[in-house]
């Protein structure tokens, strides 16, 4: 397949799964932002506004992480219930194009949510240009590893209901234990090592640094970027090697 055709496939898939469902049911857009906004509300109320910026950065991470779980659910449903993945496998569309197109479509869903959190961030004082660029790169990494993980898991589940069984565990590992909504120092020392097993912890640390609520030293910054990019590369590699495009 030529690069031009590959790009056409990718854009078509993003439009098919990202734009058309929203046209049919615009409430999909609110679905993705409902949880992050609820958490932000609770955190802001409970902390009397002190942890507002933590709530905003946590909301950004959670919104993008939700892409991974949405992708996993969509792809499981398309694969198991509609046999859509089989239709795509028996076509010139490659696995990487399919996943990229689907991940891009899920990103479209998250854009309004991200817009709300960016607006809140600006309202709460904003940040520097460098900080904004850092936030964008961190969130792109989160999008990439969450999508890779979502796709890989979706190809292993034999029923879409299995995704619901695993979702809380994945959520625990990616959004609850990592210090998305609070500083890592708030975690008990005995639990902290487990948090460091999750890529979200490094993403959250970098976000907290980028929006100026928890500055990191140069070494810590370097370490966090290295680990986040390493996790992202590893999960993309895992998807490339272990995701089942053709059934065993």
């Amino acid at each position: 397949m030529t690069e031009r055709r590959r790009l056409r496939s990718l854009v078509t898939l993003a439009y098919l799964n990202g734009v058309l469902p929203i046209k049919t049911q615009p409430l999909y857009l609110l679905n993705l932002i409902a949880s992050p906004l609820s958490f932000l509300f609770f955190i802001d109320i409970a902390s009397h506004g002190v942890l507002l910026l933590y709530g905003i950065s946590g909301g950004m991470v959670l919104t993008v992480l939700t892409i991974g779980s949405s992708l996993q659910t969509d792809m499981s449903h398309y694969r198991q219930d509609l046999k859509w993945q089989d239709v795509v496998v028996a076509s010139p569309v490659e696995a990487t194009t399919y996943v990229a197109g689907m991940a891009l479509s899920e990103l479209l869903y998250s854009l309004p949510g991200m817009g709300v959190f960016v607006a809140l961030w600006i309202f709460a004082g904003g940040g520097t240009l460098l900080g904004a660029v850092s936030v964008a790169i961190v969130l792109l990494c989160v999008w990439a590893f969450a999508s890779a993980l979502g796709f890989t898991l979706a190809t292993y589940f034999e029923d879409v209901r299995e995704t619901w069984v695993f979702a809380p565990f994945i959520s625990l590992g990616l959004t609850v234990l990592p210090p998305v909504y609070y500083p890592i120092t708030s975690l008990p020392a005995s639990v902290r090592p487990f948090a460091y097993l999750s890529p979200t912890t490094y993403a959250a640390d970098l976000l907290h640094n980028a929006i100026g609520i928890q500055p990191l030293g140069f070494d810590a910054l370097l370490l966090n970027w290295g680990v986040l990019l390493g996790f992202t590369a590893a999960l993309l590699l895992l998807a490339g090697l272990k995701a089942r495009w053709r059934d065993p």
Partner: protein
Amino acid sequence: MAEGIRARALTKRYPKSKTGPPALAGVDLEIPPGRVFGLIGRNGAGKTTFVRICATQLTPTSGELTVLGLDAVREASEVRTRIACVPQESRPLYFVTSRQLVDLYLRMRGADRTAAALRAKEVLKELELTEVADKLVSHLSGGMRRRVMVAMVLASDAEVLFLDEPTTGLDPVARRDVWSAIRRVARDNRTVVLTTHYLDEAEALSHELALLEGGRVVLEGRPADLRGRVRQPWRVTVPTEFPLEELRSYGTPSPVEGGYLVFATEPAARELAMAALQRGMRISLGPVSLEDLFLQTVGKPLTGPEEPLESEAS
């Protein structure tokens, strides 16, 4: 020289089915290019497994398989650029219209916007779907949705089309629209591999067909030739009042609703018919159908209970 599909000693055992018979137990099959090839068999016979392996959706356990001269395992990427498939029990994405589905499927395969729109229009017209072209798929009946799936794949420029039970759930008129479209595809010198439970469909569409049973090919050839190979090429139905022992002297009786179906040679069938008529019984007499052939070969009707073969849907 153009090549179709060639399977040699193809086997498939599903990873979670370590014991019990394999889904495919050494299939040897030659599917010529530019033809409609029918695969028939009971549930669990291995039809869908075979189609999924050919369509590069499933890994075989052993054996060789080439599609269009390409190894279906090692050269799967090349194979995929030249095939299309309607999987068994597949359904269209529910949030699109029929037109959008066909159009976007073609664009996903790499067609440009103008060509895709034009082709979508043509195929929807051919399958009598123009009236519902701009309706959401979720608002269509099950049969219509199935027809949209078939339209989507027939619209492609793929050289080999795999249609796994494409007309399940369609009314007789819609089935014939699909048949016409499949015949047109074959006239374009493309290969169609069709699985079906409707033997009239297999007979009407297939240039050649294979009967699978227990993961093996038990009959293969042109429908007319297959009928010629039958030892007892005539069928007679008689009511239950006819003595069973006497029936056995004419041919091979099997119980059917309200009587017996007897397979026999032509002279024996005529004698049996005369004997029954002389006793004032209602009978039917005629050459065997593909369904009878199936019954004689497999010993069970096509629409019997499903065999408990794991992960095997057909």
